[in-house]
């Protein structure tokens, strides 16, 4: 138990550091970008048919962008201390209100993609690993390589053409119903599964070659029973750890997939906020993604501890 407490407090310190570093770094990076931020914000708000220098100056005055940079930074930090992320410079809405909605959409997409990728990777990886060099193994190798070598954007368009346009089984894009979730999740899941099924396959191959596997077969257990009783748990720990590593890939993929499928998520919002120099939104979105990453890693650690009893056994 104390191990978990120790781990939690370490992660908490990490989270605080992440907040500080991301907040300061994103502020500094936004300041360092070329171009006048009043012009960019005015551009984001009003579009090119209305925006001009006069509008940009009005925005500068309204938002106090002529104030010294340190003063602006200080204001953000004091706001943050009271858990206030401020308001979006473009839409005028509270940042947290905008992000909370987008975060839900992104989490939904990410979770559904992970579940779908495991549903693909586990059977394919286990079957390939149980019979290395077999038909299944070679086929999954070829498919994995080809899927992984297609950029996420192109894969998404191929899926749209096939499943939505050709067979009209699913909608091309949109948000709000379960069926809208399937195509973007599948596009992400295929990229993720293309790697994780190979990782899983290698772990299974290793397990099958291990003495304990041979022993359980020798004592008379069937292959299926051995896999269920012994291989599953041994394989689960490294697999969960690997899924943790994939989270970084997932967050990156979400940005592209969200924009292709018009999914109103946080990745999509972050890209827009950067273009529009919406500093509070960039800070808010980057913070949320950073903290999310810490939280998910914490979850992965906990899960690994739960699956792998060796530490607990050693402690007792």
């Amino acid at each position, binding site marked *: 138990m104390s191990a978990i407490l120790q781990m939690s407090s370490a992660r908490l310190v990490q989270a605080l550091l992440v907040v500080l570093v991301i907040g300061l770094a994103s502020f500094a990076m936004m300041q360092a970008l070329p171009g006048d931020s009043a*012009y960019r914000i005015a551009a984001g708000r009003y579009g*090119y048919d209305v925006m001009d220098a006069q509008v940009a100056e009005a925005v500068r005055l309204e938002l106090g962008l002529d104030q010294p940079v340190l003063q602006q930074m200080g204001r953000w930090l004091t706001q943050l201390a009271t858990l206030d992320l401020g308001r979006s410079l473009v839409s*005028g809405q509270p940042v947290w209100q905008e992000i909370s909605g987008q975060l839900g959409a992104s989490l939904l997409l990410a979770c559904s993609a992970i579940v779908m990728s495991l549903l693909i990777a586990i059977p394919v990886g286990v079957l390939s690993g149980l019979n290395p060099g077999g038909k299944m193994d070679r086929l999954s190798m070829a498919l994995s390589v080809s899927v992984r070598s297609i950029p996420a954007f192109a894969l998404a368009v191929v899926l749209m*053409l096939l499943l939505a*346009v050709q*067979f*009209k089984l699913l909608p091309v894009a949109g948000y709000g119903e379960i069926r809208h979730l399937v195509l973007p999740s599948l596009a992400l899941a295929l990229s993720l599964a293309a790697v994780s099924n190979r990782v899983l396959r290698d772990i299974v191959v290793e397990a099958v070659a291990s003495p304990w596997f041979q022993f359980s077969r020798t004592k008379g257990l069937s292959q299926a029973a051995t896999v269920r009783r012994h291989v599953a748990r041994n394989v689960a720990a490294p697999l969960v750890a690997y899924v943790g590593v994939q989270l970084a890939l997932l967050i990156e993929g979400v940005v592209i997939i969200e924009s*292709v499928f018009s999914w109103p998520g946080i990745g999509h919002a972050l890209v827009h906020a950067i273009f529009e120099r919406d500093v509070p939104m960039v800070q808010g979105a980057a913070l949320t993604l950073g903290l999310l990453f810490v939280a998910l890693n914490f979850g992965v650690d906990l899960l690994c501890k739960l699956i792998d009893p060796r530490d607990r056994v050693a402690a007792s």
Partner: protein
Amino acid sequence: MFPKLLIALAIGITTTTLHAADARTDIRIATPWEISGSDPATDGFIFLRMGVMETLVSTDANGTLQPGLALSWQAAEDGLSWRFTLRKATFHDGSVLSSGDVAEALTRAADNPGPLNDAPISQISADGDDVIVTLDSPYGILPAVLTHSSTVIPASTSADETGESLNLIGTGPFKVDSLSVPQSMTTSRYEDYWGEPAKLSGASYLAVKRAETRALMAESGDADMVHTLDPSGYRRLGDVDSVQVQSVAIPRVMLLKMNAAHPLLDTPTARRALSLAIDREGIAAGIMRAPESAATQLFPPALQQWYDKTLPALQYSPEKASEMLASLGWTPGEDGILVREGERFSLTLRTFPDRPELPLVGAALQDQWRQIGIELEVSVSNFSEIPAGHQDGTLAVALYARNYASTVDPTGAVQSDFGVGGGDWGAMNWQAPEVAEAVSTIAASAESKERHELIRQVITQIHEDLPVAPVVWYQHTVATAKGLQGVVVDPLERTYGLQALSWSE
């Protein structure tokens, strides 16, 4: 055998869904424009197009002013005030449209960016059932300005104490049921609409930034009306049986802005030479996929009063361009780039990717100008770099799209572009006081006898001096489902015409 069975099954499912679609009464629209909130200054155009909110003055497809929420309007003898008489209408929450609501909404519009902000307004007030707009100087194009989407009238309850827009109560034929910023909105028919109620039961709006995705949505039937297709999507959809594509000339022009004080561009001869080296027909056919869209003068024929068919068309002649540059003392250097007294003919063009064709046209210009010995660097960035460069004087040339009919009458845009000192989206350092004077006279009076002659004078001088050189006139592309009846594409981009739409039996 098995694959055949699968295909048959898929076709079976497809046809069943299509039959089901015939009974539909709503419509799904996909466009590239995201909804940022409910403020008329930033999102009024979406609420106007979707028939949620309305303006005092409306237009028909030809750009002729029509009664909107105002039944009639009248200027005072001295032209310093206008009286608008309102029609009887109710907001979606059941409250009656009052002159107070209108005065409040217009005052807010005049304080926010938009064409009403540029008008010489001193006060907007309610007078009984009428609304009075008081001016500092005559402004004949005021009714035309009141067709602009930033002047839509929401209920006054729509704003909080700070004037920030909170909800979406309008007077239009459709009321908002749900709004999910920035992507989607659903509306339903407003039964107590002052005019004829809509035939459709409702409409949904989805902002889809990527042109590829929008085209696929039209093809798969996920969207019944898709606005703004990229050239390849437009061609592809032309071959799809269930979809109808339309391309309509709109008063939007792709322009090349040239800094008239730049040492390489400070004579009309130099600017004309650059214009002569642009293969407009090639760009129109190859990039825009609409050969008829090559610009022959600044304003397109759709802007009837501002289009002069007697003007000689802008030509393409690299040979003549080279001769003109030679007459200015430019001679080819070792690498083929022109030089004069040790200076290279090298320019930077600013453009932006929000309209995907702009960087492509920028690259085409780079190639076409290279043939006459001009080195062009294309800088693709945020569009605000163009007004920023105009203000700090660092801009040499810029490529962008300009809408000359956001208020129906292009006078307002022409005045800000070619008036005194030029404009962020118009002339830069161009000395033409007589044009500025002519434009302000045109703006003051919408009906004077000399108006036509003054317009002629303005367009002729722009055509000869080329402070901006038009490249192509835009086509607005729309894909609609075949079963949809009553589709009219508004060249002014004010409305999607939802009120007149219905599904065929």
